[in-house]
């Protein structure tokens, strides 16, 4: 196995133009407005691992997912998949890279075409990427195999999406992603529309597939317990910036950034271990007009004048553990109570 990560994200930024229409700007003398959804984010995902992005709504999780699968293009920065920058590739190479990166969406009710039969939905990538010649079997047989891989029956290919429950539809979405024979899956909140017992089935399935097919996952979720269960490494996003990046166990055992601590403290104690849940203070600020300095300072109890003025960068707090916080850097943050 090469030491090169499968996905390398470097100084990735994406801005959206949220200005009013040109005529309004001229008449009302308003400047252009830009919203920075992703702000200078860097991370690596080694082959066969799961990297999870967590954060509140509006932190830029889904924007990163779209950038990685090239549904939108970055404003600045690079995304190297297997050493190649996807927006720069052309022709056959571009198509091959596109094939190798597939996506699973949050809402299985919206991501499957209701007028197509399941067999057509799953076989579309096979035709789109012209994989028929690479198959050892017929396309029909391949579709049946895929359905069986995700725990459905081969004959289900004749049915329409509405005949399935939410969990089964998510299985169909996974089968569709797998039919392109990818090695990298971007999963944008794949279980948050599902009930817990069904969520468990899908999470187990995703882990089995990872083992069997050697898949690499970018896993996006707001649910810390799901993330802990799935991820090898976790990146915590706040207002588009990565504030902490650490191996999953280390992050839960030894959270550095005050925001990560806040998120961990807010996990409901469903196991009733007697852990006290601390309600979070404040809410995520408006990204059009982010706070100065460290964007977390209005909600942070350790903030001082430096935090209000300067922007912190990721620094190593332990081996392989990075956080962007002046309080951590200056050592004025008390040790966190580990929850796990």
């Amino acid at each position: 196995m090469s030491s090169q990560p499968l996905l390398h994200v470097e100084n990735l930024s994406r801005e959206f133009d949220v200005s009013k229409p040109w005529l309004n700007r001229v008449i009302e003398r308003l400047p252009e407005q830009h919203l920075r959804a992703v702000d200078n984010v860097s991370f690596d995902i080694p082959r066969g691992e799961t990297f999870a992005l967590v954060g509140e709504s509006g932190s830029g999780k889904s924007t990163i997912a779209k950038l990685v699968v090239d549904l939108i293009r970055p404003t600045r920065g690079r995304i190297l998949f297997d050493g190649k920058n996807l927006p720069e590739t052309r022709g056959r190479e571009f198509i091959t890279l596109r094939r190798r990166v597939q996506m699973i969406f949050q809402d299985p009710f919206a991501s499957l075409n209701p007028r197509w039969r399941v067999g057509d939905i799953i076989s579309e990538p096979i035709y789109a990427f012209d994989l028929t010649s690479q198959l050892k079997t017929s396309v029909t047989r391949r579709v049946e195999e895929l359905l069986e891989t995700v725990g459905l029956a081969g004959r289900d290919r004749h049915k329409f999406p509405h005949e399935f429950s939410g969990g089964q539809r998510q299985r169909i979405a996974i089968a569709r992603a797998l039919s392109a024979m990818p090695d990298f899956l971007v999963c944008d909140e794949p279980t948050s529309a599902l009930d817990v017992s069904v969520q468990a089935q899908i999470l187990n399935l995703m882990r089995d597939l990872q083992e069997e097919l050697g898949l690499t996952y970018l896993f996006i979720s707001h649910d810390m317990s799901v993330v802990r269960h799935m991820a090898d490494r976790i990146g915590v996003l706040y207002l588009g910036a990565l504030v902490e990046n650490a191996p999953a166990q280390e992050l839960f055992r030894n959270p550095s950034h005050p925001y990560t601590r806040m998120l961990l403290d807010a996990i409901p104690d469903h196991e009733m271990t007697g852990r006290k849940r601390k309600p979070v203070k404040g809410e995520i600020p408006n990204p059009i007009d982010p706070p100065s300095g460290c964007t977390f300072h209005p909600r942070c109890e350790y903030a001082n004048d430096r935090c209000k003025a300067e922007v912190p960068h990721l620094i190593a707090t332990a081996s392989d553990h990075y956080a962007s916080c002046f309080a951590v850097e200056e050592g004025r943050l008390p040790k966190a109570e580990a929850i796990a």
Partner: protein
Amino acid sequence: MNDVLLSVRDLVVEFPKRDKVLTALDHINLEVRRGEILGMVGESGAGKSLTGAAIIGLLEPPGRIAHGEIVLDGQRIDNLPYGQMRRIRGRKIGMVFQDPLTSLNPILTIAEQLIETIRTHLPMNEKQARERAVELLEEVGIPAARRRLDDYPHHFSGGMRQRVVIALALAGEPDLIIADEPTTALDVSVQAQIIDVLKRLCRDRGASVILVTHDMGVIAEAADRVAVLYAGRVAEIGPVRQVVKDPSHPYTVGLMGSIPSVVHDIDRLTQIPGSMPRLDNIPQGCAFNPRCSQVHDRCYRDRPNLIAVESKPDNQVACWLFDERASS
């Protein structure tokens, strides 16, 4: 004073279809005591929200209560005429819906909506109602309430909007609040704040809350007792600690095992095979029998009712495993 505020007895809700009648709620029995939070959990389609809708009299036709009774504070409310039920709604029972965006009117200010609701239920003039509105907003934890009173719903964030909705539900000073997935549309970080508000209400006002949710974490944290619903029936009901820590019904056991832990490393989550049956396809006997690991003959034949569990006072389980006559 009577300890029980609301009691639901043998409630059956049906939806007549062209060729058959679907039974969505099948003999639901539960009680809500004064000042307690009763959690109601279950998967989608288990009948959680429907139970709430039946209690507050907002069943959508053709849904109808076919059997049973709902008694609030000694008064039977399931058969009241529309006009009388309207007075109970808001005054005696408040409701908080899942989506704070759709439960507020976007073209009226918060003040207008609160004052209208307050004056519908309480004999107050405009000025008094406005003062009351400020108090309510402060009570649910909205900072600078007086200044924010004339804002429109879109000025508020999701969590703040849900607080406004709770304030609206409180306007008529109800004894019972039905909160239908009040935290589902919100971030985890905001969830804790809303749960805190609900808990404080119970403590300070002595109001009871029926907390409908699919999130076991929310239940574990907020509820005093919990009812687990499955396919329109109560599978297990009891004090939250017992149900969460030491569940009895095989379904509850599976449900608890399927939640990923933040404390322990689990390699594989317990999964309950299959999914909940559709209403037109509920199996004979115990509705859980196709997915149950401890199923035996009787489960295919007879439908279990709630049975007291010997070792656990206050706990009731609808499962034949706990029927003493069978085991002895």
